[in-house]
C-alpha cells in the first residue's frame, strides 16, 4: 500500500478533499477513521454517498482498523487517510496505519485552542501529539488546499514555520 495523503480534517470528506486533494495526489481509495460516523448509519450513508463511483472508500472506527489493514491495505492502492483529530491520527498510527507525512488541513477554532494558521487551531494536547509524531519521524505539515504554501510544524516553538 502507499499512503499518498494522511490528513487531519474535521470536515472529513468534503469539497477540498474531493475536488482538490484527490486529483492532486492521485488517490483512489479513501479511508476515514472516525468512531462517531462509523457508528451512525445515517451519517455514514451520507458520507459514502458523496464519493464518486471511481473511488473506493471505507469509513471505519478505530477498533475496525486492524481488520481493515489485513483485508484491504495489502493491495496496491493510493490511499488517502482522513482523521478528524490528532488523537485519532495517533491511535490509527499506533494501530499499524503508518504514514511518513501528516497534513494538517482543517482543525477548527474552539474554546481553549489557539490558531496557528487560518484553518488550524490547537491546544496543549494537540501540541503534544504533533510533537510525538515529529519524534517518531513523521513530517507534520500544514496545507489546507494544494495551492497553499506548505508550512512545517516546528517542535521547538510549537508554531508553523515557513
Amino acid at each position, binding site marked *: 500500500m502507499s499512503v499518498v495523503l494522511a490528513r487531519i480534517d474535521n*470536515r472529513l*470528506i468534503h*469539497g477540498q478533499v474531493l475536488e482538490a486533494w484527490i486529483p492532486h495526489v492521485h488517490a483512489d481509495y479513501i479511508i476515514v477513521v472516525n468512531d462517531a460516523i462509523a457508528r451512525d448509519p445515517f451519517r455514514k450513508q451520507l458520507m459514502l454517498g458523496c464519493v464518486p463511483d471511481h473511488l473506493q472508500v471505507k469509513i471505519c472506527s478505530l477498533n475496525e482498523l486492524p481488520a481493515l489493514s489485513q483485508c484491504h491495505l495489502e493491495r496496491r492502492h493510493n490511499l488517502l487517510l482522513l482523521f478528524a483529530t490528532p488523537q485519532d491520527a495517533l491511535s490509527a498510527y499506533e494501530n499499524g496505519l503508518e504514514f511518513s507525512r501528516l497534513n494538517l488541513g482543517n482543525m*477548527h*477554532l474552539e474554546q481553549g485552542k489557539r490558531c496557528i494558521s487560518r*484553518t488550524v487551531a490547537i491546544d496543549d494536547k494537540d501540541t503534544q501529539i504533533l510533537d510525538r509524531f515529529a519524534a517518531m519521524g513523521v513530517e507534520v505539515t500544514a496545507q489546507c488546499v494544494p495551492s497553499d504554501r506548505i508550512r512545517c510544524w516546528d517542535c521547538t516553538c510549537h508554531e508553523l514555520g515557513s
Partner: protein
Amino acid sequence: MVGLIITAHGSIAAEILRSATSIMGPLPQARALTIERGADVEAIYTQLSHAIAEVNSDGDGVLIMTDMFGGTPANISNRFLNTPGIEVLNGVNLPMVLKFCGSRDSMRVDTLADFLQRYGKKSIINTRDILGAMEG
C-alpha cells in the same frame, strides 16, 4: 409557504439571494448561510438548525439549496434530512431560486424539490445549442 435556505462556500449564498430579491422583490422566510473556510462544523450545524426554525415559522417545510453535493454546506444540510419537511437540493443556480419564488406557495416541499431539480438542470444551457437549433 415553503421556507428557503441557501448555503454555500464563501459569500455566494447571500449574493444569489440578493440577486433574486432584486429581481423578484422581497423574499420572506428566506435566509442565506455563508460557510467560511476554517469554520467550526458543529457551530454551523447549530446556526443552520436555528435558520430552519426561523424560515419554517408556518410549518410548511424548508428547502435547503447548497452550492455543491459533497461540499461542507451540503454535508451539514444533509444531516437534517431525517427531519420531516426538509429537502436538500445541491447545485443551486439563480433560475432555480427565481422559480422557487413563484412556486413556494402552491407546492409541497418534496414536490417543489423535484420540480426545481428538473428546472435547475434545464436552465443550464450552452448558447451554441440554441443557435444550432435556430440555424438547423
